[in-house]
């Protein structure tokens, strides 16, 4: 058991101020926090997994209608957002490195740029939602998706009911993803303020690390959402 920390149990003399009372040493505390975040991310995979499962079943049943509906959302905006998020993953990694190597300016800058990129993502997402709203593609009473051709099948029109299922899933999936982004922004704001007060040192930077894990996870969800929702049957 690599984790049983029999050695160094009573080190009150070098007690780190961030070490909580119920942990034997900082290593145990760091391991526990990081395992906790990984376990939490496993629950998140199951959370989004239910959605992906529903999406994949309907996409297989109503492929043509889903392709038509997918074609109506703006691939350029989606691709831009993908790039924005990938850049933000880079700045998160930079923040972790900066915290570990005591580069305060770089740490603050990386956290700030990460938040800026996150806000950019949400802004672009808002523009996309506005487009959908204007085009009456939001499911509900005023939904309309008439006379939209199925890509690759000229003269065949998509079934608006099935397209409505696509847009329902589109809004739920991207909406929940956006909610995770907003929570991530909150976490990063907290990290930024704590970093501003100089709380993180090469010895203690676990919050940056596990906050970063969360941010990467939210990015990865988008990496799957983008092709599934935006890139159905683009070649047709």
């Amino acid at each position, binding site marked *: 058991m690599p984790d*049983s920390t029999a050695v160094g149990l009573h080190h009150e003399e070098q007690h780190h101020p961030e070490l909580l009372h119920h942990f034997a040493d900082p290593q*145990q505390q760091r391991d526990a926090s990081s395992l906790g975040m990984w*376990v939490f991310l496993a629950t998140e995979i199951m959370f989004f997994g239910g959605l992906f499962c*529903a999406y994949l079943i309907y996409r297989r049943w109503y492929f043509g209608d889903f392709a038509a509906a997918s074609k109506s959302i703006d691939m350029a905006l989606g691709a831009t957002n993908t790039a924005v998020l990938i850049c933000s993953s880079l700045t998160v990694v930079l923040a972790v490195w900066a915290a570990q190597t005591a580069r305060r300016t770089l740490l603050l800058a990386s956290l700030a740029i990460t938040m800026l990129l996150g806000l950019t993502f949400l802004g672009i997402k808002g523009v996309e939602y506005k487009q959908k709203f204007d085009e009456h593609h939001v*499911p*509900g009473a005023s939904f309309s998706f008439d006379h939209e051709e199925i890509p690759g099948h000229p003269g065949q029109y998509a079934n608006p009911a099935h397209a409505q299922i696509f847009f329902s899933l589109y809004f739920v999936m991207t909406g929940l993803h956006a909610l995770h982004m907003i929570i991530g922004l909150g976490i990063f704001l907290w990290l930024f303020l704590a970093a501003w007060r100089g709380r993180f040192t090469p010895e203690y930077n676990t919050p940056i690390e596990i906050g970063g894990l969360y941010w990467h996870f939210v990015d990865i969800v988008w990496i799957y959402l983008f092709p599934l929702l935006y890139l159905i049957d683009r070649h047709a």
Partner: protein
Amino acid sequence: MEIAIPKPVERENYLNKEYGVWSWLLTTDHKRIALLYLISITFFFFIGGFFALLIRLELLTPAGDLVQADTYNKLFTQHGMVMIFFFLIPSIPAVLGNFLVPMMIGAKDLAFPRINLLSWYLYIIGGVMMLHCMLIGGVDTGWTFYAPFSTNFTNSNFIEAGLAIFVAGFSSILTGLNFVVTIHRMRAPGLTWSRLPLFIWAHYATSIIQLLGTPVIAVTIVLVAAERGLHLGIFDPKLGGDPLLFQHLFWFYSHPAVYIMILPAMGVVTEIIACFSRKRIFGYSFVAFSSIAIAVFGFLVWAHHMFVAGMSVYAALVFSFLSYAVALPSAIKVFNWTATLYKGSIHYDAPMLYAFGFLGLFTIGGLTGLFLAALGIDVHVTDTYFVVAHFHYIMVGGAVMGYLGGMHFWWPKISGRLYPEGWARLAALIVFIGFNLTFFPQFLLGYLGMPRRYYDYSHMPEFQVLNVLSTAGATVLGVGYLLPMVYFLWSMRYGKPASDNPWNAAGLEWKTASPPPTFNFDEEPIVTWEAYNYEELDAPHKQEVPVAR
């Protein structure tokens, strides 16, 4: 440990260290949070029990006279939702698990004490939403809230009830997360995985299900609420949506959830049986890994709830087969418990009476589960009282028996007082008799064809005799549940002070004071022995196990 001279002053412990409401509401001590949970789930247990009582009263006569159909629908819905999400799921893990997991592994607290407190607050928020929902009219969807009834048709306030379950589910996830990390990272030196009490293995397996199952019901609730509130279309057949998809998503959590409720009880019973037969548990590693096997297989059997829902017959065959497979690890446990009893020196104290009750009732519940896993019989008894009886044999006969047994077993440690043994044995007997009188007639009713969820059976008055028996049994059962609450409360003030280890039991939690100090152990324990070393403990030349150095 100190000498047994009557204590002049009470030792400082987690109960008397601080006083005042805020010292409880803002506590991060896992033992105090366990007590907060104990009070809250007891409250919900009696609310759910009240609904059960009304259901039984209605069924006393064949005519629908006490309540009307709408009210009856709400009664069984709220009974199910409250009992499952606000009592059974948190019962053993959040009370006994919270109290004992850190103590059994020699830790000062759970890995994330503040998240532990947060989980209780989430539970309370969910509970208040559920209560509010009941007060403004209740829900009539059944606890299974199948689409499209829940999404498009019911006039009751499903969204609030769904969100209540969503929030309570979060609380359950956080408890599981805390346990997994604590068990991985906080074990005392020398406490290897193969030395862990089986209670810990059971909670580890439970936590895995909580972590991987609960998020799926969460997202299902989000989808139903979005469909109902925002008029999205996901399960709506009018749009080409598939209500069966809802059932798959729902049971993907809700079948494993049955194991969230029963696995911890299995852990409790294992501890009790080892202690009161003074033996090492037979086949330790089989019992340990059968918990993990139940957690894994438990995720592969969900569609046996849907045999008559229009699923393909091939899928049904596979799920039927897999449902048989999950009986194997459960049977392994029953056989190993029985083998532990063999040639043990058995003590018939109250916790052991509950453990015996568990053994018998869980076996009946499990075997009737195999009837339901068999496609042919399932078609015959689906949606009858046979299913209701099976389910309650596992949940009430199994989980609640385990919970009560554990409460008695660890009450001296929790409160520092002994409960009155005579009353406790009487209560255990009353619970056992009342339970069987309530639910055994339901097996017969179901087999004869009485459908569940009907408030009026006046066209089949021949069912009344068995229904009267069942209602009479429920009354007896109610008395059996009230008794422990009364004498536990009584013992907190008037009970005899408990010694540190009144049962002479193995396990780290018994090697510290009763009640324990805030950080559980005065000295960090180091474990050099295997679990359940009762032969060593009972060896005549030794008075005490070599403790913690």
